[in-house]
């Protein structure tokens, strides 16, 4: 895998560089940016779900903490965006750390349920604390500026989003092949075994949780600046499920899968956008067909098919 990881990152990088050249218009670029920003959160969630095997359907809460953290800090305190981002990420990490300890003791669907609850609570707080968050109607967010340089051009955004995505992929790929990553993957399959080999399971899980929360906040913060507007729906149950779906559709524990899942599920609604009423039918159908024919998710299933083809 390691031998595989390095060139594959180069390929990813090359794709990122070539993409703007082949995309016909700014709208496509816009989609690419959205997909990339989302993918960062999904790559992070994959650390928790794919690596450590702890399914969360409340993860959008962290994306929202990132978005609202930045939004509120820049708007109400007038701090510079990057400082706001750092504070939001630190805040999310702290929240994640505090939540992780009790919640991650739960197993399987019980954990899923607890993360769902966490997400719902954050969502309700965002909806109800109108004075801070603007309530259900959301709030607008200032454009991203670094020093005095204001990022408004879509191309700048593309470069930023792509760079962040590649960085997060490198981190995730490295982790996969490291002792810490192995520990996470090991406890995913057998906590007893991992423990017997000296893995402090509770700590490993909460680290994965905190790390994935940080990825999510970074994604949320930048998205907020990019979109210029945030609303509580980003913390909603549906969005959480969407993120988890991206991980699974791409392929659990596969970093490239996470990215592909994010791209697919970001682009798909756009492709279906003009179908007037038939969007959900097709979306549901495509989701089902993907999982039926590629049950392990896009990347692992395709890798398996390719290796089989090669062998026979």
């Amino acid at each position, binding site marked *: 895998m390691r031998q595989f990881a390095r060139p594959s990152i180069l390929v990813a990088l090359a794709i990122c560089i070539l993409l703007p050249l082949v995309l016909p218009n700014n709208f496509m670029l816009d989609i690419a940016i959205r997909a990339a920003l989302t993918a960062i959160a999904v790559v992070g969630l994959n650390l928790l779900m794919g690596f450590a095997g702890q399914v969360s359907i409340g993860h959008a809460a962290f994306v929202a903490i990132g978005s609202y953290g930045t939004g509120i800090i820049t708007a109400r305190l007038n701090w510079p965006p990057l400082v706001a981002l750092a504070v939001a990420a630190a805040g999310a990490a702290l929240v994640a750390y505090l939540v992780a300890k009790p919640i991650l003791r739960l197993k399987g669907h*019980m954990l899923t349920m607890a993360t769902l609850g966490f997400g719902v609570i954050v969502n309700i707080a965002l909806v109800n604390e109108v004075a801070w968050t603007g309530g259900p109607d959301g709030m607008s967010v200032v454009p991203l500026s670094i020093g005095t340089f204001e990022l408004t051009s879509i191309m700048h955004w593309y470069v930023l989003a792509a760079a962040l995505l590649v960085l997060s992929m490198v981190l995730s790929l490295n982790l996969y092949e490291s002792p810490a990553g192995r520990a996470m993957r090991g406890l995913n399959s057998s906590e007893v075994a991992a423990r017997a080999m000296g893995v402090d399971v509770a700590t490993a899980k909460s680290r994965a949780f905190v790390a994935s929360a940080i990825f999510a906040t970074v994604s949320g913060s930048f998205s907020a600046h990019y979109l210029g507007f945030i609303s509580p729906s980003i913390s909603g149950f549906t969005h959480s499920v969407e993120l988890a779906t991206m991980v699974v559709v791409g392929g659990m524990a596969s970093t490239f899968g996470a990215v592909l899942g994010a791209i697919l599920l970001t682009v798909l609604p756009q492709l279906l956008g003009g179908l007037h009423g038939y969007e959900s039918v097709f979306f*549901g159908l495509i989701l089902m067909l993907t999982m039926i024919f590629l049950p*392990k998710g896009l990347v692992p299933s395709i890798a398996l098919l390719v290796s089989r083809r090669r062998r026979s």
Partner: protein
Amino acid sequence: MSDLSQFVFSGLTTGSIYALAALGFTLIYNASGVINFAQGDFLMLGGMITSASLAMGLPMPVAIVAALAITTLIGVLLYQLAIRPAGETSVVSLIIITIGASTFIQGAVQILLGKNQFTLPSFSGDASLQLLGAYVLPQSLWVIGVGTVLVVACALFFHFTLLGKALLAVAANRLAAQAVGINSGRILRLSFGLSALIGAVAGIVAAPITTTTYDLGLMLGLKGFVAATLGGLNSGVGAVLGGLLVGLLEALVAGYISSAYKDAVPFVLIIFVLLVLPNGLLGAKSTERV
């Protein structure tokens, strides 16, 4: 005092609806370990198909039977066309399939039956009864009654029939189940069919109270999942307790604490319950040994 009994009755009614939604979850979970995200949509289908049949001029009993039959068929088809072809795969993949199915079903209903809100006539009229100082709709009693009957039936099924045991066996160890001669496909089809049926029944008795729209399943499914998990997921009685608890919490919190945070407070409490009872109210402890 009459406030309290009003809250309790209100909680019991919504709780019973949640419980019925939860019951279906446990059936599919018990046979496959899968959380069926389309469970809420079975309830929606029950209500929607009945009201659509009524609109077509069918008499109520016929409409109900039609709704039950069609929903059950959809449950079976969900297994046959989507779950089964996926083969031996991880539980999360199957859960994603049910999410896809849910989206699909809602989309199809929205196209075929529209996005309007529908309702069904109450079975025994709309005049509310006075019980212990509370105003109670006769339909609430229907919901509570049907819920009781179904949960008892489920409990009997799992405790006293070999078929019920076979359902559990398939979830516990698919390979071994096949090796002792259980047709796991048939069992799973049965569990999907039954839970769709229960969902439809629930949807029909609840519709006069909740009214129904094509996306009602989202909310009911979510609450049903919460209730089922709280109950321990593998126990029908647990699911019912979970449902009632969620319903009561919501009503009491709305009544006594804060109606703005009434959806959040139960979640906080539920998470605390799970921290004390990590397997839910009636969930079995893991028996895995090393």
